[in-house]
């Protein structure tokens, strides 16, 4: 077989470009839809209170070296005090709160909505690609791959002598799926729900109010652990040095 296939111009116009355009548009659509869905949430007072307490404790932890020891200690006692500290949750209440959270229908529905809005457009687009654009060579990737990739990349093409570089439209779909993430981050700003990896990290790391007792306990423990070291006493000397240098330059 000739090494250099000449492909029809019509493939370019009617397969590659429309597929990319459709994926970009679906991504933009998904971004706006997720924004609309997210705005109809009724926040729970108790969960918000606990979440904010956790945030305050975290701020205290991260800025601990900027305040003198006594004030840090008094703030820490305010948080972790056994009787009325903000982060202290008695054991029975903790278990009750956990059971409630797991039965809470709102939380489950939100998770499901987010999952659906991510999975459904991908599935639909993939099915559409398979239905319409299968059975012919769609593109040539500029770099050679080992023959093991042949079955993955050349799905609709039944000739086995065609070079592995000539791929079907299914692989063009996957290439677009991964490659357009960077493009979306440029045109949609920072917060876009189109990046799967980022979404997974956000969902697992930001359980806001989903498990309040555990996070409170964790914050309390980490606050207890901190050893305070005040970084600022040397600041005066540093400021003095900087000012001296400036004065010399004048």
């Amino acid at each position, binding site marked *: 077989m000739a090494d250099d296939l000449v492909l029809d111009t019509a493939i370019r116009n009617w397969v590659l470009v429309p597929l990319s355009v459709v994926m970009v548009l679906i991504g933009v659509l998904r971004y706006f839809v997720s924004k609309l869905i997210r705005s109809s949430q009724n926040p729970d007072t108790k969960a918000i209170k606990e979440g904010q307490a956790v945030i305050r404790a975290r701020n205290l932890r991260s800025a601990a070296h900027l305040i003198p020891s006594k004030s840090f200690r008094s703030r820490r006692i305010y948080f972790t005090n056994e009787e009325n500290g903000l982060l202290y949750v008695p054991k029975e209440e903790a278990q009750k709160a956990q059971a409630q959270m797991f039965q809470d229908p709102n939380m489950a529905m939100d998770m499901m909505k987010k999952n659906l809005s991510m999975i459904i457009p991908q599935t639909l687009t993939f099915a559409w690609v398979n239905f319409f654009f299968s059975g012919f060579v769609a593109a040539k990737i500029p770099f050679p791959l080992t023959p093991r990739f042949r079955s993955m990349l050349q799905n609709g093409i039944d000739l086995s002598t065609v070079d592995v570089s000539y791929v079907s439209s299914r692989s063009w779909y996957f*290439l677009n799926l991964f490659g357009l993430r*960077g493009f979306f981050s440029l045109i949609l700003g920072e917060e876009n729900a189109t990046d799967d990896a980022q979404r997974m990290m956000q969902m697992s790391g930001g359980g806001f109010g989903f498990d309040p007792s555990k996070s409170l306990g964790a914050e309390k423990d980490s606050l207890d652990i901190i050893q305070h070291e005040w970084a600022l006493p*040397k600041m005066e000397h540093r400021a003095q040095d900087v000012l001296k240098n400036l004065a010399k330059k004048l």
Partner: protein
Amino acid sequence: MATQDKRSDTSDFPEIINTDNLQSNMKSIYYSRTFLSIIGGVIAGIWGFTGFTGFVFYFVVMLAASFGLAAKAKFSADSYFDSWNRVLLDGILGGLMSFVLFWTFAYDIVHIF
């Protein structure tokens, strides 16, 4: 693409870092690398690089980007970032996929028409 200064205390043990500025600096690095990888992909496709040459071109572009970023940060990573690795290495693999996509696209449009 303005990078913002953050105060960092190099003489003491705990480092004082303004996290907002650090994050905005990281974002500007990410945006510039993504943009450059897309443009680099289109250029590689138009010029007809194939195979290994294309990947070499991508890493050359990323090196130039790192050099430009380091120059913009006045070659002192301490005043803008918390470590040199962020300036030099962050975001390179993420841009690779965008590079390959636009490289394939441009190569096909221009050469296999």
